[in-house]
């Protein structure tokens, strides 16, 4: 394919622009995706930009080393289904990753265009999404071949990306896989955390259906450790466990007034809206709405929260972040979209306390302005409050999105499980095996809060190693 078009011509093509729903329209809808997806011609053209480098550095940028040039060249050829199949060789949920991966920090940051030519990278993420969506919509999605069932039962705790990737691989190896989920919906953070306007639930459900077709079993409303203990499950015949219960523990700042009504953790806010559909009239779950909404934090969760607040009718939706915009952990695209939608970015500000009215509902907050000092030993510049800069702000809804921690429920049921002081499960980094030999772990419960792609990589690695472990056990 390389010879078909000269590289010089390839580099003349401008990077494709993802069609986006207009900001003023999209802020009215919780469930309309902002990025509308590439058209076939756009995808073909963008795929042509890729020069199929001899030394593809983009692959090194991918946490799971997807063979990027390979799938892009299939797109260029017009063989989209093959492109999707290539993606699925490494990535269990390309439709998800194409939407939510921080490509600007991963594959796209290592693209030749960026590295050597100071030009925008190939839109690897958009192409990945295109291929995955095409396959899904074509109805021709192939169900991967699974090996002969070997009768060995394995369980995963949690149904987020790590578990789904693990389940997909294990069922291919021939195992009898059951995914146990504490909530009433499957998908973990993909369903309750990431809003519809970024990742439609239908995309996730399609993948879940595929897993079902492959033979993966799902149990909802089942808390492993409470509904049944691990011992109970062992008695039922489960020989291996993959713990991927995620980072579902909210963190607050512990400042005065934080327990007032109308101050929610991002988990609560997003779960009410995304999982329980609280914004819809015919759903029973309520959500508090505000006119002046402040979201504390600068990550993707904060962006999701503040954009949700806008869609729920906020007149002022503000991000309050103690560092500068350049240091925000959020994806650049999310920040851009948020700004287009009218989110106010109050950077270099930090809350000190909240005020409430007589009913106990938050009515205002006091903040400090911050300056950035010298880099500390972490390498980041330290936010320092500027003396005398305190000011007040009217707010009637606050979402605290300063990060989440691993949910302690499962570790608390397993006293022998080694856990770090951060609450994460200690695992062998190559094998994802924990201190209990038949228990493997991956995803946010091991990494703190990280990305979907890393969670999936963990799931796949754990599957491979648990397979080896169980096979060697049964051979002995």
């Amino acid at each position, binding site marked *: 394919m390389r010879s078909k078009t000269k590289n010089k011509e390839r580099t003349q093509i401008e990077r494709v622009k993802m069609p986006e729903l207009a900001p003023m329209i999209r802020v009215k809808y919780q469930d309309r995706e902002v990025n509308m997806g590439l058209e076939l011609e756009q995808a073909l053209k963008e795929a042509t930009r890729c020069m199929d480098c001899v030394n593809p550095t983009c692959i090194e940028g991918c946490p799971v080393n997807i063979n990027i040039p390979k799938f892009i060249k299939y797109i260029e050829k017009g063989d989209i289904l093959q492109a999707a199949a290539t993606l699925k060789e490494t990535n269990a949920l390309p439709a998800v990753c194409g939407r939510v991966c921080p490509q600007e920090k991963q594959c796209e940051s290592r693209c030749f265009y960026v590295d050597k030519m100071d030009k925008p990278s190939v839109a690897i993420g958009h192409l990945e999404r295109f291929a995955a969506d095409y396959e899904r919509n074509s109805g021709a999605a192939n169900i991967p071949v699974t090996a002969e069932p070997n009768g060995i039962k394995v369980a995963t705790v949690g149904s987020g990306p790590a578990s789904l990737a693990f389940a997909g691989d294990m069922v291919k190896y021939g195992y009898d896989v059951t995914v146990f989920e*504490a*909530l*009433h919906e499957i998908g973990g953070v993909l369903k309750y955390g990431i809003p519809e306007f970024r990742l439609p639930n239908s995309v996730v459900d399609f993948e879940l259906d595929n897993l079902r077709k492959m033979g993966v079993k799902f149990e*909802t*409303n*089942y*808390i492993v450790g*409470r*509904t*049944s*203990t691990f011992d*109970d499950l062992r008695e039922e015949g489960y020989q291996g466990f993959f713990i991927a219960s995620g980072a*579902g*523990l*909210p963190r*607050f700042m*512990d400042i005065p007034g934080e*327990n*007032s*009504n*109308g101050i*929610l*953790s991002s*988990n*609560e806010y997003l*779960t*009410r809206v995304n999982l*329980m*559909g609280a914004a819809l009239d*015919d*759903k*029973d*779950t*309520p959500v*508090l709405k505000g006119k002046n909404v402040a979201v504390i934090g600068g990550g993707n969760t904060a962006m999701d929260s503040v954009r949700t607040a806008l869609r729920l009718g906020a007149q002022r939706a503000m991000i309050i972040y103690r560092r500068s915009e350049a240091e925000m952990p959020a994806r650049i695209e999310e920040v851009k979209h948020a700004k287009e939608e009218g989110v106010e970015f109050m950077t270099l500000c930090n809350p000190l306390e909240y005020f409430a009215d007589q*009913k*106990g*509902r938050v009515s205002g907050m006091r903040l400090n302005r911050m300056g950035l000092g010298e880099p500390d030993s972490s390498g980041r510049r330290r936010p320092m409050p500027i003396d005398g800069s305190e000011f007040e702000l009217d707010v009637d809804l606050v979402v605290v999105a300063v990060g989440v921690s691993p*949910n*302690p*429920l499962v570790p608390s049921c397993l006293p022998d499980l080694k856990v770090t002081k951060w609450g994460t499960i200690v695992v062998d980094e190559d094998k994802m095996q924990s201190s209990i030999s038949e228990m493997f772990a991956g995803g946010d419960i091991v990494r703190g809060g990280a990305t979907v792609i890393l969670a999936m990589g963990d799931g796949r690695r754990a599957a491979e190693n648990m397979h080896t472990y169980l096979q060697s056990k049964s051979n002995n």
Partner: protein
Amino acid sequence: MVVENPLIAKSRKPGNFVILRIGEDGERFPLTIAGADPVRGTITLVVQIMGVSSSKLVALEPGDCITDLVGPLGKPTHIEKIGTVLAAGGGVGVAPLLPIVEAFKKAGNRVVTVIAARNRDLIILEDEIRKWSDEVIVMTDDGSYGRQGLVTAGMEEIIQREKIDECIVIGPAIMMKFASLLTKKYNIPTQASLNSIMVDGTGMCGACRVTVGGKTKFTCVDGPEFDAHQVNFDEMLMRLGGYLQEEKAATDIYLQKL
């Protein structure tokens, strides 16, 4: 109502609760497990109609399925043989009180129970409570049944006539607050079972947070029972009212639909 769920029936302990959901549009809400039969594989829930969700639950017929039911959640009650236990239940609080009264009695304690409600119709589970208590005092605000007065009056009478080693109070937050102030006066260790608003029930969202002893705790995983003398009841009462407007609006719409 008796619900079939063998797994929960087997692993449940007194003090645990479940989270339910009725219908695909339903909200998640907690109910204490009033009793369980591990052999039959059933759990018993006691519901009183308060709003939309409880109404939907009560409207179910035998044979219907609860859309989602998860548990057992929360820390079980700490039961031990301690001597004399004073149990006080207000209104619907008597339902979660029942399994605890039963457990304390089975552990060999002398159990004196006060159950109270606004009027006769709201007194529930009296027979079941009597089965597991050495003595029962019934109080109603209007005197329509039992003695007239608040639950605290009944409690104080018992406290003054015999030594109480531990107290457990369950009921509306305001009742627990005053009961707790009463026992604090007499230095009786007291547990209160809090009925905070919950969404997931597994410690994931923080909606149920309360301040106990100056520290923030989650009712669903650290509780639902806490040292009553350390609980900031005023804050809890305030947080319970967080969705009053939305709850009222939802109830109105639901009643209209019927």
